[in-house]
C-alpha cells in the first residue's frame, strides 16, 4: 500500500491540530450542554486517550507496524468519525450533575461520558504514536511537527469559534482529520490512486454535507434556557456564539420576562417589558425596554443594589460586568453623572448597542454612558479614571449560584487583591458596592465581608469596621466598602433606605444587635453576628470554626465560590433526609470523583494491560519509575498553575489557556529537540540536573516577581502581553522539555525493554496530574502547586542518578 520511507510530517501536524482543537471545542460544548467546570475532566480524558493509545501501540506493535499506512489511515478516519459521534453519544447518556448526591447511578453515567470522551483522543494518539514508532530515527522532526500542529490547533480552535457556529466547528474538525488522512496518502505515496480522491471526497462531505440536525447541541433539560423554552410562546429572537460564550435572547409575546432580583416586598411596581438573555443556557438576565423615561425603571430603586445611590449624590459610576445594562439603567435612574460600563463579551455589547438598539433605547450609545469591552480587573488596573461608585452586582444567575455550580471556577473579581484594586480606583469618599444572592446559612455574604475586611487591613486601614456596611433583603445581600469612614449622615441614609423597603441591616459601624433581623427574619441574626465576629479579635478562629469555607479568596487561590469543607460534609450528608443535601457544594465531590475515575481509568487502560502482557517481566528499575512519574506530574502541575497565573494578565481564561498551552508545547518541543541533538552531553545526566536547576530558579523567580510585573505591564496592548507571556514561559518550557527524552534515551541504554512502562507511567501521571493540580490549587493555592512541581523535578533529578547507575 505504501512505499514511502519518509514520515508523513504534514499529516501529523494536521492530525495533531484537529485533536487539540477538538479538546478546546469540547470545553465549549460541555459548558453549553452541562456546566463549564468540566474542563479539567476533558483535559484528563484527552491525556487518558493518548496514554491508552501508547499502551495499545506497545502491545500490538508487531501487528500494527507492518500495516502501518493502513492503521494510520484507520486512526485518522476513526478520529474524524468519533469526534462528532462520541460527543453525540455522550449527550445521550442521561447524566445529571444536579442528581449526583441523590442518585448512585449518576457516577457510572459520568464515567461512561468520560470514557466516550477519551475515544477520539485514543485514535489521534494512535496515529501519531504509530508514526513516531515507525520512523523512530526521525522522532525529533515528527515531534516538532506534532507540537506545531497542536499549537496551531489550540489557537485555531479559538479563531474557528469566533467564526462558525459550534456544530460547524465540529464538522470542520472532522474534515481536518480526514485531510490529515488525505495528506498522509500523498506523503506516504500510497496506492491505489483513488484512495486520495476518496479521502478528499470525504473531506468535502464532512465539511459541507454533514446535516446540521445530526450535530445539534442539546443542552441539559435542567438548564435555565431549556426550561424557559418549554413555556408556550417563548422563542429565540437571537443567538450569538463566540469562545466567550453562547448568548441566546428569548422573547415571548404571551408571558413576558419580569426580572427584578430580590425586589422589596413593599414594592408595587412591575418591571417594564424585558427580553431574557442566557449565556451558555444559564440565566436569564433581562434586557429591559427603555424609552428614555425614567419612571418605568422605579423597580430598580427597590433592589438592595440601589443602596449606594442613597448614600452618594449623583455619583460617577463604574459598572463591572455590565451585561445587558440593568445596572447602567439603575445608575441612570438614580441620577449618575457619568457611567463607564465594562463588559467582557463584545457580542453582548453588540446586542444592546445594535441588534436591540431601539428596544434598549440606545442605552449603550448615550453620551453619558461609555461602554468598554474588557475584563473587569484588567480595566480597573489599567484605567486612570477615578469613580465615586464601583458597582458589581449579581453576575451569576441564582440557579447556578445556589446549586453550587461555580464551586470550582476561578473568579478574580472577588479576591482580596481585587478589592484593593477597586478601592484604589475610587475618589475620596467613594465606595465599592457588591451584591450577591443570599445563601443560608450565610456563605457568600460572610466571605465577601471577610474579603473586604482583609483587603482594608492589608491596605493599612486601622479600623476596617468603620468603612463597611451590609444590608440584606429576602433574596439578595449588598455590601458597601468605602474608602473613608462612613459619616453619621450616610449611616442615617442606609437606615432609611433599608427601613422603607423592609430590608434588614446586617452591619454598619456602631450597629446594635437589636437593630438586626427585623423584616426578613432569620432564626438568628447570623449575618450581623458573623460580621461582628469577622471584625473582632477572634476572626481567624471564627473562620476556622465556621462550617463553610469563608476564608477570603486571593489571586493565588481565586476560588470565591468554594464553600465546601470536609469537616461538614459527613454531617450534611447525614442530614439529606431533612433537606441538608443542598448545602453540600456538589462540584467539589465531583472533582474528587473525577480524580478517582482518572486514577481508575488510567490504571485500567494504561498500566494494567502492560502488567498483564509479556511486559510484566520488564518492569523498569524503581528509580526510573519514580523519575517518569515525577516528571509527568510536575509538567502538568507547572502547566496548569501557569495557565492560572496568566489569566489575570491576559484578561481571559480562554486566551490564557490558548497562549500558555501553545507556548508550553512549542518550547517544550524545542527543549526535547535540543536534548536529542546533544545526547552526548547528556550522558551523565548533566542536562537533566541543569534543566531542573533552571526550572527551580525560574519558577521561584516568577513566584516572586510575576504579580508585580503583571501589575506594571497590564496596560500594554494584547499583542505585547501575549509576546511577553510567551517570552516568560519560553525558558521554563524549554527546560521542562528536556527530562522526558533524556530519560528515554538513558533507559534505552540501560533497560531498553522497560521503555513501554516509562511511557505508560508518564501517561498515567499526566492524566492524574491534570485533575490533582486543580484539587491542590483549591486547597493550597497555585504557588504551592508550583513549589510541588519544583520538588517533583528535584526528586526526578535525584532518581535520574539512581537509574543511570542501574
Amino acid at each position, binding site marked *: 500500500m505504501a512505499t514511502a520511507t519518509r514520515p508523513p510530517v504534514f499529516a501529523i501536524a494536521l492530525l495533531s491540530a484537529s485533536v487539540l482543537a477538538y479538546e478546546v471545542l469540547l470545553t465549549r460544548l460541555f459548558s453549553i450542554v452541562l456546566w463549564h467546570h468540566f474542563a479539567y475532566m476533558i483535559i484528563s480524558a484527552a491525556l487518558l486517550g493518548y496514554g491508552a493509545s501508547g499502551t495499545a501501540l506497545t502491545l500490538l506493535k508487531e501487528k500494527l507496524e507492518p500495516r502501518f499506512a493502513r492503521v494510520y489511515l484507520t486512526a485518522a478516519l476513526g478520529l474524524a468519525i468519533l469526534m462528532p459521534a462520541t460527543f453525540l453519544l455522550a449527550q445521550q447518556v442521561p447524566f445529571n450533575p444536579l442528581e449526583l448526591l441523590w442518585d448512585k447511578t449518576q457516577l457510572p453515567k459520568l464515567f461512561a461520558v468520560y470514557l466516550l470522551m477519551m475515544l477520539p483522543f485514543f485514535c489521534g494518539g494512535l496515529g501519531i504514536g504509530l508514526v513516531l514508532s515507525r520512523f523512530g530515527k526521525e522522532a525529533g522532526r515528527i515531534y516538532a511537527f506534532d507540537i506545531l500542529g497542536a499549537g496551531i490547533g489550540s489557537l485555531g480552535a479559538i479563531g474557528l469559534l469566533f467564526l462558525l457556529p459550534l456544530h460547524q466547528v465540529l464538522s470542520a474538525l472532522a474534515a481536518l482529520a480526514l485531510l490529515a488522512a488525505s495528506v498522509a496518502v500523498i506523503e506516504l505515496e500510497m496506492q491505489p490512486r483513488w484512495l486520495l480522491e476518496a479521502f478528499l471526497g470525504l473531506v468535502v462531505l464532512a465539511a459541507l454535507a454533514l446535516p446540521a440536525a445530526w450535530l445539534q447541541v442539546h443542552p441539559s433539560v435542567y438548564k435555565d434556557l431549556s426550561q424557559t423554552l418549554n413555556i408556550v410562546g417563548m422563542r429565540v429572537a437571537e443567538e450569538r456564539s463566540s469562545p466567550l460564550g453562547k448568548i441566546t435572547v428569548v422573547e415571548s409575546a404571551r408571558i413576558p420576562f419580569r426580572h427584578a432580583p430580590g425586589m422589596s*416586598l413593599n414594592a408595587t411596581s412591575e418591571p417594564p417589558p424585558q427580553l431574557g438573555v442566557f449565556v451558555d443556557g444559564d440565566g436569564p438576565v433581562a434586557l429591559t425596554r427603555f424609552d428614555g423615561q425614567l419612571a418605568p425603571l422605579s423597580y430598580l430603586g427597590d433592589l438592595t443594589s440601589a443602596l449606594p445611590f442613597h448614600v452618594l449624590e449623583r455619583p460617577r459610576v463604574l459598572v463591572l460586568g455590565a451585561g445587558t445594562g440593568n445596572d447602567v439603567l439603575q445608575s441612570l435612574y438614580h441620577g449618575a453623572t457619568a457611567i463607564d460600563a465594562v463588559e467582557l463579551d463584545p457580542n453582548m455589547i453588540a446586542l444592546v448597542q445594535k441588534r436591540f438598539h431601539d428596544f434598549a433605547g440606545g442605552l449603550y450609545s448615550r453620551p453619558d454612558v461609555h461602554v468598554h469591552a474588557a475584563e473587569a480587573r484588567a480595566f480597573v488596573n489599567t484605567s486612570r479614571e477615578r469613580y465615586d461608585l464601583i458597582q458589581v452586582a449579581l453576575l451569576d444567575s441564582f440557579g447556578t449560584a445556589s446549586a453550587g455550580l461555580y464551586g470550582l471556577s476561578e473568579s478574580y473579581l472577588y479576591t482580596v487583591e481585587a478589592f484593593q484594586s477597586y478601592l484604589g480606583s475610587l475618589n475620596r469618599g467613594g465606595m465599592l458596592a457588591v451584591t450577591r444572592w443570599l445563601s443560608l446559612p450565610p456563605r457568600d455574604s460572610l466571605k465577601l465581608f471577610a474579603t473586604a475586611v482583609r483587603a482594608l487591613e492589608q491596605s493599612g486601614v486601622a479600623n476596617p469596621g468603620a468603612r463597611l456596611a451590609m444590608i440584606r433583603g429576602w433574596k439578595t445581600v449588598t455590601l458597601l466598602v468605602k474608602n473613608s469612614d462612613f459619616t453619621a449622615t450616610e449611616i442615617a441614609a442606609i437606615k432609611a433606605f433599608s427601613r422603607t423597603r*423592609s430590608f434588614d441591616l446586617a452591619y454598619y459601624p456602631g450597629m446594635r444587635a437589636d437593630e438586626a433581623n427585623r423584616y426578613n*427574619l432569620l432564626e438568628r441574626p447570623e449575618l450581623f453576628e458573623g460580621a461582628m465576629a469577622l471584625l473582632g479579635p477572634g476572626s481567624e478562629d471564627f473562620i476556622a470554626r465556621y462550617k463553610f469555607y469563608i476564608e477570603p479568596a486571593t489571586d493565588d487561590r481565586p476560588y470565591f465560590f468554594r464553600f465546601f469543607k470536609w469537616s461538614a460534609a459527613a454531617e450534611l450528608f447525614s442530614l439529606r*433526609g431533612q433537606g441538608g443535601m443542598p448545602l453540600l457544594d456538589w462540584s467539589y465531590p465531583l472533582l474528587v470523583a473525577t480524580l478517582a475515575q482518572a486514577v481508575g481509568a488510567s490504571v485500567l487502560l494504561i498500566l494494567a494491560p502492560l502488567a498483564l502482557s509479556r511486559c510484566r517481566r520488564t518492569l523498569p528499575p524503581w528509580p526510573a519509575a519514580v523519575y517518569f512519574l515525577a516528571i509527568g506530574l510536575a509538567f502538568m502541575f507547572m502547566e496548569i498553575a501557569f495557565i492560572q497565573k496568566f489569566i489575570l494578565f491576559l484578561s481571559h481564561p480562554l486566551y490564557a489557556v490558548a497562549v500558555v498551552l501553545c507556548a508550553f508545547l512549542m518550547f517544550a518541543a524545542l527543549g526535547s529537540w535540543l536534548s536529542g541533538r546533544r545526547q552526548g552531553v547528556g550522558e551523565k545526566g548533566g542536562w537533566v540536573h541543569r534543566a531542573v536547576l533552571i526550572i527551580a530558579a525560574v519558577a521561584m523567580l516568577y513566584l516572586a516577581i510575576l504579580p508585580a510585573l503583571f501589575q506594571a505591564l497590564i496596560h500594554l496592548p494584547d499583542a505585547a502581553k501575549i509576546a511577553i507571556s510567551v517570552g516568560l514561559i519560553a525558558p521554563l518550557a524549554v527546560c521542562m522539555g528536556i527530562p522526558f527524552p533524556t530519560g528515554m534515551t538513558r533507559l534505552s541504554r540501560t533497560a531498553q525493554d522497560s521503555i513501554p512502562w516509562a511511557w505508560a507511567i508518564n501517561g498515567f501521571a499526566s492524566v492524574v496530574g491534570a485533575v490533582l493540580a486543580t484539587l491542590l490549587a483549591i486547597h493550597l493555592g497555585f504557588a504551592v502547586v508550583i513549589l510541588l512541581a519544583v520538588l517533583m523535578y528535584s526528586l526526578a533529578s535525584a532518581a535520574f542518578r539512581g537509574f543511570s547507575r542501574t
Partner: protein
Amino acid sequence: MKRHSTLLAFACLCFALPAQGDAFETARHKMVEEVAADAAFTSSYSGRATLNPNVVAAMKKVERHRFVPAELASYAYLNRPLPIGYGQTISQPFIVALMTDLMNLKEGDRVLEIGTGSGYQAAILAKTAKAVYSIEIIEPLGKEAARRLKSMGYGNVETRVGDGYYGWPEAAPFDAIMVTAAASHVPPPLIKQLKPGGRMVIPLGTHFLTQYLMLLEKQVDGTVTSRQILPVRFVPLTGGH
C-alpha cells in the same frame, strides 16, 4: 398454548396489582413516618413540635407513585426529589411536608398554587384545605396534572395553564399561596391577592436542591413580613452558638 400463557400472564398481573398497591402503601406510610420524625427534629421554625396531623394524614393518603413517571414509581417513596420531565421535578417529600405545614391551613381555607408541576403538592393541599387553585406555565405538564388530579378524584382542585404572575383574580383573595415556580421577585399582584393574616410559602433554590424556604405573612394592617427558613437543623459554627 399461546392463549394459555396470555391468560396466565393476565391472571398473574391481576393478582400482582393489589400486592404492589399494598407494597406502595406500606412504603408510603414508612416514608411519611420518617418525614414526620425528621420534621420533629427540625421543628423550631414552624412553631410547633410536630407536623400538623392533617399534613401527616394527607401525606399518608396521597399516592406519590401516581404523580411520577411510571418508570420511577419504585422510587416514589424515597425521601428525594424525582424528575418529572421538561426539566421539572416533584419535590422532596420532606420539603413538601414542611411547606404545607408552614401554610398553617384550616379546613375552610382557599389556596392558590403557582407551579402545578406533577400535581402532587396540589393533591396534598386538597386534602388539607377546602379549595385549591393551581396554575402551571408549561402546557403539557399542566394538562397532564389536570387530567391526573381529575382522574384521581380531586374535585376541589381547579387548574389552569398560563402565567402565574397575576394570580387567579376571580378566585381571590386566598388564605394561603404557594409559589413553587422560580421567580426573581414576589409578584406584587400575588401579595395583593393574599388575605390579611394569610401566608405565602416560596421555596428558593433549584429543582433538586431547595436551599431555604420563605414564609411571607400579611398582617391585618396589610404590611408584609417574611421569614427565611432553613429546612435543616444545621448550626454553621462548630461548638454551636
